[in-house]
Structures are given as structure tokens and as C-alpha cells.
């Protein structure tokens, strides 16, 4: 069942258009992520869903009910959408317990207490029930903010960069915890982030945005292995683009030999194209006639990441496990191993 549908959303501040036909859906109990660099419009999408901004065009539908339209605008307090903020925004004059109970005032006291205790246990903060926000650390405050937003059992939970004010170490840990908590409570949620690790750790589906447009809405696997455009290919993961020429319906000729596989239909004979080469696509074969020179290397714990320069001048990345490192300026033979090439035609 569809929990949320965002249909062709446009948004402008005055003459400045921020969003262009943003379109995606979120299924029941799923966690979606809006991922993109800062200023791409992802927070605006979230605020429009929450009802803090009114889109200039398009529709937002929650549980089959329209939230906005020509004569409709459901106020944020009527939407049953919970929100977790980047700056946490706990109420400083209320205790942890009162903060959590803030949104469930209509329940009788005993149920409110039960719900609050349940959530405190869920976020592992039971011993801090009576403390005040300023006595807690950033990570603890964000757990309470999450509990507060979940207390009314919202139809949808929105999280706006909830981890960005925390330390790196804590971030990954809390990201995983948040996923477990949301799954346990069966809450549909959208996380806004600029950090792909966070998006991969939390989201079932990730919607990559750039310059106010949705670039690709897909699983993490597909974003990595089947990026739809250059932006997604470059934004997600590591890799390089290798130039080549289409020589037949399933072949591209490059400096490093021919690459074969199903090509997109838009590729015509003799077209100039770029092929996405991920580090794991590059295989070292000493006897191979295709040579490349190592120009940089970085230690990556389980192995090294090398930057290679081909004889034709193209740069590639290559990840090799093991402790024995190849040296800079060393010339090596390489082979490309690509099952399904990702190809972009060159303008």
C-alpha cells in the first residue's frame, strides 16, 4: 500500500524556483532517503511534506488523502506527520518525559506514561526520564527527539539531517539504531541527508536529488551499479569515466580494449561515450598488454586504493585487497571485467 505520494512538486521562493517536478512514492513501513548535496532542495521537499511550506504546484498525498491543492491546505498540526530536526529542538523547559508526552496530550495519563516508558526503553534512555535536555549529550538529545516524534504514532516520520550535529563515530552507530527502531515500530519514514553512508545504512529506497530535481529513485544497489545519469554515477560511490566509441550494437572500443554487454538503445554506431568504471571492475593481470601507471595510492585498511593512468591518458581507480602494495610509478597490466556496462553518451 502506498503511504506517501509526492506528485510533480514545484516550489519557488519568489522568482527563485527551488523544486522542479519532484516525484516519488513511499510504501507502507518503508524508509526512504532523500540524498543530495547541500542546496539540492531535499529539505524543502521535507518541509513541504510536513506542511511548513506550501508547494507552488503538484500534490502531496498521504494515506490516499490529499494534503494540498488549489483549495486544500492541511495545516502541519493536522497531518499526523512527525518530524526530527537537524538542531534537535527539544523544549528546554520540559523534562525528557514531558518532551516525549508533549504530542500525546489527548491520551489519558496512564497511557501517556506507558507510551513514554515504552519509547524510552526503545531508544535506551530509560534512566534519563526526569532529566532536562541541557543535561544530555547531543546523541542522547537526538534519541529523545526521535522518541518525541514517534510518540503519537505518526503516519509518517520525517528526519531532517538528524545526525549531522553529532560526531562521526556516533553517527554511523545511531544511523543503524534508527533503522532498527523504525523497523521495530513499523514506521514509514523519510530521512534527509547529504551523507551516502547514512542513506545506505538507513534507507530501503534512496531518492538522489540535484538542483531541485529527482535524479534517480532506487535501491542503494541500483544507485551504485545502475546509475541513470552522470550526476548519480559520480555522486554515489567511487569510480571513473572511461571514454570510448560504440563499434557495434553491443561493443565499445576503448584504450583498454573492447567492452561488451547490453548497451542502451540511445547509443548509435560511432557515438562517443563514457563508460563508468568502478574500482572493482579493474583487474590486475601482469601479462596483459594494456598497461597503466600507478600515480597515487591510499591505504584503505583491508587493502589499497590506487589511481591509475592509462597510456591513452584516462584515469581509473582500482581497489586491491591484501597488504602487499604496488609502488607509485610502477607500470602494470590491467583488464576490465564488466558484466553490464554503464554508458553515458558524451555531449
Amino acid at each position, binding site marked *: 500500500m502506498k503511504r506517501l505520494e509526492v506528485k510533480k512538486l514545484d516550489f519557488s521562493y519568489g522568482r527563485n524556483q527551488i523544486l522542479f517536478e519532484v516525484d516519488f512514492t513511499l510504501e507502507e513501513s518503508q524508509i526512504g532517503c532523500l540524498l543530495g548535496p547541500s542546496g539540492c532542495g531535499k529539505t524543502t521537499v521535507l518541509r513541504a511534506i510536513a506542511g511548513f511550506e506550501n508547494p507552488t504546484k503538484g500534490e502531496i498525498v498521504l494515506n490516499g488523502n490529499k494534503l494540498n491543492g488549489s483549495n486544500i491546505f492541511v495545516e502541519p498540526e493536522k497531518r499526523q506527520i512527525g518530524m526530527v*530536526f537537524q*538542531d534537535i*529542538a527539544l*523544549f528546554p523547559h520540559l523534562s525528557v518525559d514531558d518532551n516525549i508526552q508533549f504530542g500525546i496530550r489527548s491520551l489519558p495519563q496512564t497511557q501517556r506514561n506507558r507510551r513514554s516508558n515504552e519509547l524510552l526503553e526503545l531508544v535506551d534512555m530509560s534512566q534519563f526520564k526526569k532529566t532536562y535536555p541541557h543535561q544530555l549529550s547531543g546523541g542522547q538529545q537526538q534519541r529523545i527527539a526521535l522518541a518525541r*516524534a514517534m510518540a503519537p504514532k505518526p503516519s509518517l516520520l520525517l528526519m531532517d539531517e538528524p545526525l549531522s550535529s553529532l560526531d562521526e563515530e556516533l553517527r554511523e552507530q545511531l544511523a543503524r539504531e534508527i533503522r532498527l527502531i523504525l523497523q521495530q515500530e513499523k514506521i514509514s519514514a523519510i530521512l534527509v541527508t547529504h551523507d551516502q553512508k547514512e542513506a545506505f545504512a538507513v534507507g530501503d529506497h534512496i531518492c538522489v536529488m540535484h538542483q531541485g530535481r529527482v535524479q534517480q529513485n532506487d535501491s542503494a544497489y541500483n544507485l551504485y551499479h545502475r546509475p541513470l545519469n552522470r550526476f548519480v554515477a559520480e555522486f554515489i560511490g567511487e569510480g571513473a569515466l572511461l571514454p570510448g566509441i560504440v563499434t557495434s550494437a553491443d561493443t565499445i572500443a576503448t584504450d583498454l580494449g573492447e567492452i561488451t554487454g547490453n548497451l542502451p538503445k540511445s547509443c548509435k554506431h560511432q557515438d562517443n561515450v563514457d563508460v563508468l568504471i568502478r574500482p572493482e571492475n579493474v583487474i590486475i593481470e601482469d601479462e596483459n598488454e594494456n598497461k597503466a601507471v600507478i600515480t597515487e595510492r591510499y591505504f584503505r585498511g583491508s587493502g589499497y586504493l590506487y589511481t591509475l593512468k592509462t597510456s591513452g591518458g584516462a584515469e581509473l581507480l582500482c581497489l586491491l585487497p591484501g597488504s602487499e602494495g604496488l609502488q607509485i610509478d610502477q607500470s602494470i597490466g590491467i583488464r576490465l571485467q564488466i558484466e553490464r556496462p554503464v554508458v553515458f553518451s558524451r555531449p
Partner: protein
Amino acid sequence: MTNITSRMWRPSIVGTALILSVPILTIVFSVFEPPGENWQHLKDTVLPEYLGNSLLLTFGVGSGTLLIGVSTAWLTAMCRFPGKNLFVWLLLLPMAMPAYIVAYTYTGMFDFAGPVQTTIRDWTGWRYQEYYFPQIRSMGGAIAMLSLVLYPYVYLLGRSTFLEQSVGVMEVSRTLDCGPWTVFYRVALPLARPAIVAGLSLALMETLADYGTVAYFGLGVFTTGIFRTWFGLGDYTSAAKLAALLMLFVFALIIMERVSRNKAQYHNSSGKLTRFSEYRLQGFKAWGAFAICAIPIFLGFFLPAAQLSLWAMETWSEMVDDRFFELIRNSFLLGLGAALISVILALFLGYGKRILPGKTTIVSIRTASIGYAIPGTVIAVGVIIPFAWLDVRIDAFMKSSFGISSGLFFSGTIVAVMFAYVVRFLAISLQTVESGLDKIKPSMDDAARSLGYRPRETLFKIHIPLMKSSTLTALMIVFVDVMKELPATLILRPFDFNTLAVRAFELASDERLADSSTAALTIVIVGLLPVIFLSKTISQSRFDQGNTEI
């Protein structure tokens, strides 16, 4: 925010700012008025005296407040010695003492006929002029009196920056083998300088604004000059021109304060606050620190308060009569009225700035709140000139159209007094209200709404509880400042209308020092309220969120 509200709000903000800046604009434009007959004479005779005395007074009080304020701030922030925790808030007590009250109390004590000199003569048998005793009624005396009651400005801002300074920076200096004196001179003081200068400029604004002390001591400075020209010569344009000159000095101080406050933002860079290990003072050092803190408290508060109490015990039965209760009622109503108006305006402007940020709003609010720096005397002259002009016009219009005289509606009534108070004290309430508003992040509004609260409910559940204490503080501070206010009330009050401050000053000027003490003591006791409040805020440890703003 709907468009209709914002369309109404912005013009109202601009309008409020314009109305409140009328007195200051009046004074500024008086510069371009053709000079009256007295102006040349004033310029040749007394102006150099006013200028010289004002500069001397400013310089003297500046040095005095820095000396007392910085030393006590450093000692109470960084050192541990007997009585320190008590001193932290006792050092604020002199703020409750209006300078003019301290001035005539000291005069009563140390004058030729006062108890101190009489005792000396009784013990030694010396007679008049056979011994040296410093003259209280002098420039030196005025500097001492004003320094004793104004140093808390420097102390407060200085102490809070010493506390907020990155503990890391201090500890790094200690690991680099710097002793306490070196840390003070090479690290702490340079870092705290902007905040100290901001405190100093506030103290100096008060110095330039002072009328009671200098008038009682018979010193010719700008404020007393304006009074003489206004009441003695009846020359309003010349008085306004003198006021304009005084304002020039004040503007210099405002710029100094603003620049320092901006710098201060960057100087206090500590992220996490941890406890700085204080220097433990022992032996003579501990007693030295004790004395440095105890002396200003004794001289600035306890000694004059004791003298006032002694006098009040002698005279209160005669002084507390129906007229006295009328004084209390007048002061109370003026204070309450001005406080309510200022706080309502402050809330209006503060929320305006939050909802409609932008240049227009910010410039308007800056303009509306400039009065805190302008001496009451100047504001009073700036109020009465346009109000009198307005009254004459209205009266003429009423006479010609309806054949009745409307008399004075604005000038010479409570309206003028109240208006001057609001112009002068709006900034204080605005600052307090804004510091309260700063604690309410915009995302808290959003959070409340996403949890099912309507905007009105958000106001009651989030804003009012969080704003309550700062609003009450603003009310109290303005109320007390109005109680103590002297020069603007003296110039603008309706005929036969007295307040506690005016009555105390009049009695003292008539050398009825003992008789004035009941009114003076009442002012001091009311003045203690905000001091107690402030001391509660600052004595909370630096781990708490209480921020000390003046």
C-alpha cells in the same frame, strides 16, 4: 505568516521606530536652527568649562570603574579566597544605589559639619582649616561617587567573559609555564578586552547622563549646563544645541560599545565548558583579594545604606505622611505604566524581527532602541520641544474652530513623562525580550506544530513558558529604572507632580539630607530587586544556561 499580517506588521515597526526617534531627531536638527542670542555668550564663557569637566569626569570614572570592575571580576572568576562566593553577588549591590543618593549621603557624612569631621575635631581639638580633609563636593568626589556605583557594569561583563573564555586557552597557558599574572596580562585580558570595553562604555553613558550628582556638587558639565540654559535662561534652542553636543559624545560611546560587542562574539570561542581549576589564594594574597572586593561593596553600598537608615530612623515619622504615599503612588504608577508599554513594544518589535527579518526591520529596531544611551536630560529637551509645538497647534486649531482652548495635552502632562521613559528604556526591555526569544529556535515552533499543536497553542505551550521569565525581568528592570530616573522627570513632570526620586533630590538640594532619607531609602530598596535577580542568575555555575546580559 499570512501576507495580511506581514503587510501590517512591517509598517507598524517602521512607524514605532519613527515616533520613538522624534526626540533624538529634534536634538539633531536643532544644530541647524539659527542660534539664539545666548549661544555666542555660552560658547565663549561656559562651554569650554562644560566640555573640560565632562571629559575629566568621563576619564576619571572610566579609570575608576575599570580599576574596580576588572580587578573584582578577575578575582571572583578565577581565584578562590575567603568570602568569594558571597562577593560574586554582593559586588552587584552598588547598582541599587542611584549616584545622586550616594553623593549627598557622603556629603552628609564627610562635610565639615558631618559626623566624621566633627569626631576628628572633638578628638584632636583642631579647628576649622587647621587640618586637611578632602572636599567631597568636588570633581574628585563626583568621580569617586560615580565610580563606586557604576563599576558593576564592567564587573558583570568582565566576569562573564573571564568565565566563558575557553578553559583550554587558559590551561594551555598554564602548561606553557605562565603564572597567574602572565595569564591575566597576556591571555585573559586581551581576550576579555572587547567585553570590558562594552561594559565601560555603558558605565560612561551613565556618567554622561548623570545629572543628580554633578548638580548637587555644583559642577558645570553638559547636563547641568542644559538645565541652567533651559530653566535659568529660558533659552530652548541653546539648550537643544548643548544637548546635541552631548549627544556627539554619546554616539562615540555607542560606536565603541557596538564595535566591542561585535568583537566580543569572536573572542569567546569556547565550545565546551569545563571547570577551570581556580587559583587558590592563601595568606596575605587571600586577604588582599578579600579587601579588594570588600572595599567597593562597603563604600558603594553598606556605608551609604547605613547612613540613610540612621537618618531615616530619625525622620521617618515626620516624613511618612499622605504626601509620601502620594509620592510612592506616583512613582509606582509611572514605573508600572512605562514598564508595561516598553515590554509590549519590545514583544511587538522582537517578534517582528523574528517573523520579518530584513534590513528595514533591523534598522527600525536599532533606531527605536538607541535611547538607552541618550541622557535623560537630552531626551527630555527633545520631547518637550515637539510636544509644545504640537500643543500650540492643537490649541490654536481648537480655538479657531470651536472657540475652546484645549490647553496642554502632550507637554506638561504625564504623557510627555511616559513617552520619555519609553524612549529611554525600551532598549533594555527589548534586549531582555530578545535574549528570551533567542532561546526559542524556529524549529521548536515547527516541532510543536508537527506534534499537533496549533500556532496559538504553540504560543501558550512553548513561547509563553519560555518567555515568561525574560518578560518579567524586562518589566522589573524598566520599572526600577523609572523609579530611579531623575533628570527627565524633573524637566517633564506636570506642575506639582512629584516622584520619590524628585522629592529626595529636592530635599537634599535644600540641605535637608536627613529628611530626604526616607524617600531615598525606598528607592534603594526597590532598586535591590533587579540586583538580587541578577545575582541569582550569575551565581549559577557556568554549566547552567543562565546568561548574564545587561
